[in-house]
């Protein structure tokens, strides 16, 4: 109850103090930038016109490819993944106060405006983390560099899966549980795997920096650097989960208590154990078969109303894990 009180009163209070100042600062910076932009605007205009021409050509090509993709999907009787709705948010502060022991940032959206606990947070560069605690209109994001952050990932080229774990401030990310015989290369991109439904599949997260093998371990030691510049976050995108379709068969899945948020892990336990401070309770029904993942699903699947009820398991897709991504 005290946590809830602190989130509703304290966090909102901090947000209310910081947001007007950030807005005022932005106005001043924007006015100054507008003035500066007048200088050399003609050259920039020419460059932009050229860019528009190039992009128009690319859009045409992309449209063709998109049409081809739709045809191939129809051919394979697959339906496209449900879309995640992006929502912009401003970072109003990074670690703030003596209690900010975790790698975190405060953003200008809360659970009334699309930033419920567990919501993925990204930038145009890559994944930032996910919402940890949320007040009505302000929320705290747990960055992926926090030692408690866990994220199911796979490499872009070799499709090697693992769990991406933070190693602390300004540190690299460690990709754990990569078998010794699995192929993964330095420089390869690491993407979200979409497992557990915490993130849509295929969002870039990091780039592999080093790969080494040990005789003492069953797994390779893989380090990667985050693509997003977590030290200089200003604006982020929240990926809101696909809405539950009316009339769809629902399965009561455990989800995260809005007052407790998504707890970071210990860094000591099993990466899939899901313990570590999160308070989960079965409150939010999530659409069966959809469950927030972007995995493709055959259209020939029996209607949801006829399908057998899935058995809950520790690895259910769509579950908001207590402390694992």
């Amino acid at each position, binding site marked *: 109850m005290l946590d809830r009180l602190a989130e509703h009163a*304290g966090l909102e209070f901090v947000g209310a*103090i910081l947001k007007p100042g950030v807005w005022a600062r932005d106005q001043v910076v924007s006015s100054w930038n507008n003035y500066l932009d007048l200088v050399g605007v003609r050259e920039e205009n020419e460059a932009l016109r050229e860019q528009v021409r190039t992009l128009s050509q690319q859009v045409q090509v992309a449209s063709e490819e998109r049409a081809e993709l739709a045809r191939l999907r129809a051919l394979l009787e697959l339906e496209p993944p449900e879309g995640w709705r992006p929502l912009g948010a401003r970072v109003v502060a990074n670690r*703030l106060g*003596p*209690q900010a022991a975790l790698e975190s940032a405060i953003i200008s959206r809360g659970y009334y405006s699309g930033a419920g606990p567990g919501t993925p947070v990204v930038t145009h560069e890559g994944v930032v983390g996910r919402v940890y605690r949320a007040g009505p209109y302000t929320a*705290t994001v747990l960055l992926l560099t926090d*030692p408690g952050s866990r994220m199911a990932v796979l490499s872009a080229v070799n499709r090697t899966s693992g769990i991406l774990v933070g190693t602390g*401030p300004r540190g690299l990310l460690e990709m754990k549980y990569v078998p010794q015989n699995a192929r993964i290369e330095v420089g390869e991109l690491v993407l979200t795997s979409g497992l557990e439904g915490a993130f849509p599949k295929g969002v870039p997260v990091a780039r592999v920096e080093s790969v080494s093998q040990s005789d003492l371990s069953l797994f390779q030691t893989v380090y990667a650097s985050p693509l997003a510049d977590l030290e200089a976050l200003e604006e982020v995108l929240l990926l809101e989960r696909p809405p539950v379709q009316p009339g769809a068969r629902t399965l009561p899945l455990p989800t995260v208590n809005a007052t407790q948020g998504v707890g970071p892990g210990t860094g000591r336990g099993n990466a899939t154990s899901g313990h570590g401070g999160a308070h989960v309770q079965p409150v939010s029904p999530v659409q069966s078969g959809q469950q927030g993942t972007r995995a493709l699903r055959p259209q020939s699947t029996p209607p949801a109303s006829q399908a057998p009820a899935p058995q809950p398991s520790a690895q259910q897709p769509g579950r908001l894990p207590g402390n694992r991504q």
Partner: protein
Amino acid sequence: MNFSNLAWWACFIFAGVWLQQGLPGIDVLVAGLLVSLQERRHYQTFWLLLVLLLVQEGAGTLAFGSTALWYGALVVFFNVGRWLFEAENLAFVVLLSLGLGACHFLFTLMMASLQQLDIPQDRLFMESVWQACAIPPAWWLTHFVRRRCMGDAHPV
């Protein structure tokens, strides 16, 4: 608590939160609580404590408790230390800040351990040192500004 006093504390909290934005892991608002304790205004201290508690706990990432413990330690240290020192003595404030810096490290570590969280201890240690270093100047500044703004009506 009259309106001017209320406005002063509101401005103090506003400025403190903005200052904390640039000093991650540091509590500068505690200086106001110390000044309020020195003024021996229990009603004012109670409400200030409550507001600061909500602000710090709400903005933090640990479960509720460590700031409450920390502010509790401040109140205990202050009342115990007042038997030995003058409350407005700079040496007393320095000793108090050292104790609070140590408590900041211990309480945060304890609460993180209870929640099974991994936090970088070297950074926490450095922040505790900075916290101890920040309290005396923050207290002096708060004391000075409050005295200038509010006059002798609020002697320390």
